[in-house]
């Protein structure tokens, strides 16, 4: 197993090497060297080569862009601003040779990702077939290695009785192995897809290679989260994933919408990360380590943070806050729809399959330490997210927006599953969702690519290539795209024979079992929400399919130039569609619980919270008899004996089993029948409204939505609310208050000190003038006065002097007489 860990590290580092190679070799000069000039498209003259005469910018040296495609290209936009890119060169021309070289260079990135995929499959095979460590609790990874980064070395003096240690390490267990394959597979397929999708003339100046560099950086970061064995490493790569997302969303950085969207994504993520870091700090300061295995061991031995279950709940909820941010749960869901400003392959990789799954993955990793209250919180957040996002997706017209809200809703499903204790179902759904959502996004990318080119061909820069109201009838022209989209849509809608049915059925069964075991308001609400959202999902996904692919084309001029995409773009779609069938996950398409994925690959870890803090059980299951009756599920009940943690999970297992026996045994349990009913209803309504030929043209409207439709279309006005409260209401107010403070209080103090200095100086000056000089002058005046006085003695007349002499004699005479008599 050591080789597995080493291979995992190799798999982690290879994409980073790809990142560096693409940047360094990709002639990726600074963007300023190859400025792409956005300006509102006037009408260009396109000559035979598609060169555009331009009288616009002064430093246009030469327009040597002799490429077969039109040089003016623009990224998919919203239909409000279309920018045309003109390359202004400052470091020499961008020639055909440069273009070819850049294209050839990018294959290195794809090759690296292919190697990573192969290695991941091998690692997964070895890991899953390796036995679990016997006797250890079932949240222990099969292999683990860590190195001490920094040991604070204060074991003797620390408040918790052991040293604080920061480590870095990797682990290998089934969950990590599965995620390795998922991430590398989808990354590889996205690389293939992007080689054609992003191959536009606007990709000058190394920007083509920079795209693949960023994809490599992202894959590296995501793999770091997957194989990390401690929370600090997860956090580091968590932030790196956020950075990669920022770079990729803002890839078309000249446009204002991506500039706004990538900041929004990063900042909203950061808000969640505050909570996550607080949770990390609680655990670190109280337990001294962040390694997951050690944390769970300490918690199951009874060492609670601050000795209270409340703090454990708080730690769990705070760590989950990171997932709220990263997985776009309510209330931090606002960034994901805006993230659609990035190129579609980016949306497929990051915002459908992997990065947003990181939040679910984190919650799964910390699942053992969640208490009952934390789990209820998680379930409530997941349920709220699911239904809010699904309701918004019902009325969207932009293809990618439907998928974005669908992603948010499905993530809500996964989080909901974790909250009700259906851990395996959540992971199962994560994997199946990655497959079919990536397929859907890449298919939408395929459609948008063709819409793009068609609009270019007819020189139309006003209509939005992503708006479904411009599409229609594409299944004739893009059959492979249509088929793969259909398969993925059937999967997401929960139709049997597809993977989505299996995972969604498991989640719904889990919610139902939770409701039986631990009833309460949230349990009931979440159960209802699960079914309602399933129906809504089926409805809006099929609405999307009908609007895009069925019926008559709504814009015939665009339709004329649509054709199927080349194999390198369609190939990944086929692969992902195949993986959306039931086959990879279990032999019996109707009984997911019996399939290998749920029964042996991913098993629910035991909760380590103290028994009193676990979810309340209304009627305990006879766990003792059940242990012997269900050996394949030996993971959890066996560990009930390991620690006093089993009552809830044993009851949940029992309730889930009971549910599977209801309805039609081994074919469809009650939860499955209900989900079939709900999904079927959704598809039927979608067909009636959008799929029938008669319905064409009545439901598609270019007018602004009103009433409830407007409320849903504008995303429940959540963005408007946040915009009013935070930048305007909070930051602006704070800014004004601080500016007032600075101008009046701070400057007032400074001015006051100055005024005081001046006053003191004046006083001292006055003192000097009047008192000191006065004294001196007084002395002088006295001398002068005395002099004046005595001057008068000297009259110059001898008679006066004679008189003085006489007086003096008399005085002397008397004086001598006195002295003589005194003697």
């Amino acid at each position: 197993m050591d080789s597995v860990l080493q291979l995992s590290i190799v798999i982690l580092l290879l994409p980073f090497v790809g990142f560096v190679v693409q940047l360094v070799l990709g002639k990726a000069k600074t963007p300023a060297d190859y400025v792409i000039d956005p300006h509102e498209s006037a009408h260009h003259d396109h000559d035979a080569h598609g060169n555009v005469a331009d009288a616009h910018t002064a430093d246009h040296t030469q327009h040597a862009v002799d490429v077969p495609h039109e040089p003016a290209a623009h990224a998919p936009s919203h239909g409000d601003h279309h920018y045309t890119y003109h390359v202004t060169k400052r470091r020499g021309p961008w020639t055909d040779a440069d273009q070819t070289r850049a294209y050839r260079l990018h294959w290195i990135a794809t090759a690296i990702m292919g190697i990573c995929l192969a290695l991941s499959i091998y690692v997964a095979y070895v890991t899953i077939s390796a036995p679990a460590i016997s006797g250890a609790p079932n949240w222990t990874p099969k292999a683990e290695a860590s190195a001490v980064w920094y040991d604070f070395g204060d074991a003797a003096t620390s408040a918790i009785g052991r040293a604080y240690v920061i480590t870095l390490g990797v682990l290998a267990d089934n969950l990590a192995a599965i995620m390795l394959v998922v991430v590398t597979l989808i990354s590889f397929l996205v690389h293939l897809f992007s080689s054609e999708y992003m191959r536009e003339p606007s990709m000058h100046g190394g920007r083509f290679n920079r795209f693949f560099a960023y994809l490599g950086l992202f894959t590296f970061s995501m793999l770091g989260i997957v194989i990390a064995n401690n929370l600090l490493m997860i956090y580091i790569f968590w932030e790196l994933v956020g950075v990669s997302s920022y770079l990729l969303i803002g890839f078309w950085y000249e446009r204002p919408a991506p500039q706004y969207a990538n900041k929004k994504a990063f900042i909203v993520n950061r808000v969640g990360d505050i909570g996550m870091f607080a949770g990390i700090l609680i655990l670190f300061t109280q337990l001294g380590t962040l390694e997951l295995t050690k944390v769970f061991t300490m918690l199951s031995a009874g060492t609670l943070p601050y000795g209270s279950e409340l703090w454990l709940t708080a730690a769990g909820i705070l760590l989950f806050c990171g997932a709220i941010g990263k997985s776009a749960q309510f209330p931090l869901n606002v960034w994901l729809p805006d993230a659609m400003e990035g190129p579609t392959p980016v949306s497929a990789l990051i915002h459908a399959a992997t990065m947003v799954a990181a939040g679910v993955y984190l919650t799964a990793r910390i699942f053992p330490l969640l208490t009952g209250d934390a789990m209820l919180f998680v379930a409530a957040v997941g349920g709220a997210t699911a239904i809010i996002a699904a309701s918004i997706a019902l009325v969207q017209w932009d293809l990618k927006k439907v998928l974005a809200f669908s992603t948010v809703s499905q993530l809500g499903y996964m989080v909901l599953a974790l909250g009700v204790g259906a851990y395996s179902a959540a992971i199962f759904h994560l994997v199946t969702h990655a497959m079919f959502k990536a397929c859907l996004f890449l298919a939408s990318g395929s459609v948008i690519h063709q819409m793009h080119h068609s609009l270019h061909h007819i020189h139309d820069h006003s209509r939005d290539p992503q708006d479904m109201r411009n599409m229609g009838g594409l299944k004739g022209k893009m059959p492979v795209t249509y088929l793969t989209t259909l398969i993925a849509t059937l999967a997401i809608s929960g139709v049997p024979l597809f993977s989505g049915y299996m995972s969604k059925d498991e989640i719904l069964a889990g919610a139902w079992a939770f409701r039986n075991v631990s009833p309460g308001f949230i349990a009931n609400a979440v159960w209802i929400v699960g079914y309602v959202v399933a129906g809504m999902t089926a409805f809006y996904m099929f609405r999307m399919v009908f609007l895009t692919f069925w019926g008559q084309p709504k814009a015939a001029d665009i339709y004329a130039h649509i054709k199927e995409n080349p194999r390198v773009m369609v190939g990944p779609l086929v692969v992902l569609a195949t993986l959306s069938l039931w086959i990879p996950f279990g032999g019996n398409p109707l009984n997911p619980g019996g399939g290998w994925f749920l029964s042996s690959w991913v098993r629910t870890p035991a909760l380590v919270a103290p028994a009193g803090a676990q979810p309340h059980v209304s009627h305990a299951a006879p766990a003792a008899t059940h242990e012997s009756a269900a050996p394949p599920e030996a993971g959890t009940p066996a560990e009930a004996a390991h620690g006093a943690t089993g009552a809830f999970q044993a009851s949940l297992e029992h309730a889930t089993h009971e549910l599977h026996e209801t309805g039609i045994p081994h074919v469809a349990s009650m939860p499955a029948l209900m989900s079939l009913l709900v999904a079927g209803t959704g598809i039927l309504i979608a067909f009636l409204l959008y799929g029938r030929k008669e319905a064409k043209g009545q439901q598609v409207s270019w007018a602004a939505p009103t009433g409830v439709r407007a409320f849903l279309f504008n995303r429940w006005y959540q963005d408007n609310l946040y915009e009013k409260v935070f930048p305007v209401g909070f930051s602006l107010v704070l800014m004004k208050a601080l500016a007032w403070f600075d101008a009046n209080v701070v400057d007032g103090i400074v001015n006051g000190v100055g005024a005081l200095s001046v006053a003191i100086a004046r006083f001292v000056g006055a003192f000097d003038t009047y008192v000191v000089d006065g004294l001196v002058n007084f002395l002088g005046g006295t001398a002068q006065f005395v002099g004046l006085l005595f001057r008068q003695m000297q009259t110059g007349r001898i008679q006066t002097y004679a008189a003085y002499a006489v007086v003096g004699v008399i005085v002397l005479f008397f004086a001598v007489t006195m002295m003589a008599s005194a003697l």
Partner: protein
Amino acid sequence: MPAVGLPHFLTIGAILFSLGLFAIITRRNAVMLLMGIELILNAANVNLVAFSRYSTAGTSLMMTGQIASLFVIVLAACEAAVALAIVLNIYKRFSTINVDEVDMLRD
């Protein structure tokens, strides 16, 4: 009539002295000032003679005081001559013998 004794002559001498002093101090005319000086000298003479007459020291009829007074008279005369010479020079210099106007030593 009481017997005329020494005190009576001394009193006369004192009176003469005072008058002479008064003359010195108050007269504006330089010559009058010199007269005052003469008076003072004469007062001294009177005192000398009186003390000589009424003294009982030595043999009777000691004439010391009277002799001294003769010296004083001669000296008075010399001194008057010199003084008048000074007054003459003062007149040459200041064209006046009003001693109030000879105050060049006033600052």
